[in-house]
């Protein structure tokens, strides 16, 4: 029953819980989105996302320098049921709704101004790549 304990452990950390909450409200998220919405360091965001990745909660996709994550939960699996439960518990909470609102504003601002991701990929495409130092 260690696997089941580990399963519940995925949500036993406030940061991971918030990350899953954000992911279940949107199609995919860049590490940079998680960093700005939760106000945490890149190292902390990546560490928790890798944790979720290794437990099979999310899949990843590289886009330039950043990793993009999305939920990878099969319908009717225990994971999906746990996410549904999380949704049910968090949906009435102002704090959780505020977090999703924050994410929506963040994503919108990114689209209107310089998207961090596009900025990175255009830098990558430019002929003068930064020298390796």
């Amino acid at each position, binding site marked *: *029953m260690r696997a089941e*304990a580990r399963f*519940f*452990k995925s*949500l*036993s950390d406030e940061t991971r819980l918030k990350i899953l909450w954000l992911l279940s409200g949107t199609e995919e998220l860049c590490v940079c989105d998680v960093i700005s919405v939760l106000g945490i360091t890149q190292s902390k965001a990546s560490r928790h996302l890798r944790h979720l990745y290794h437990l099979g909660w999310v899949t990843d996709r590289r886009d330039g320098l950043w990793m993009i994550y999305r939920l990878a939960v099969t319908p009717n699996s*225990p994971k999906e*049921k746990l996410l549904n439960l999380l949704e049910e518990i968090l949906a009435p909470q102002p704090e*959780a709704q505020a977090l999703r609102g924050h994410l929506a504003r963040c994503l919108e601002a990114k689209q209107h101004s310089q998207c961090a991701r596009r900025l990175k990929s255009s830098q990558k495409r430019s002929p003068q790549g930064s020298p390796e130092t």
Partner: protein
Amino acid sequence: MKKEAQLFKSLADETRLKMLWLLMGREELCVCDIMGVLGTTQSKASRHLRYLYHLGWVTDRREGVWMNYRLSVAPGSPEDKQLKLLAEILSSRPEAQALRDRLEQWLAAKGQSKDGAAACQCS
């Protein structure tokens, strides 16, 4: 959202998960039953049960030197929903069924050795 994380943390430990699973199958259990079935020390069993007690999963009742615990989860509460999900996941696991069987055997043996709950002198 710290509270919710803590709620899920209750089930994030294998021993606590097993305890809740055993408690779900019975009305009340003595610390000595948990020790006997899970093969843990009294200190470990009591520590985890106190943890569950302080988070409101169980209530306690003293009987002589032993403490008895029972689930105290309000119907429809987040805790109740978590337990239902846990039961759903575990009911198909042979390991979980074996644990419940061991509990039944343990309780039957206890009932034969002395009468009723007074048989908790199982050191």
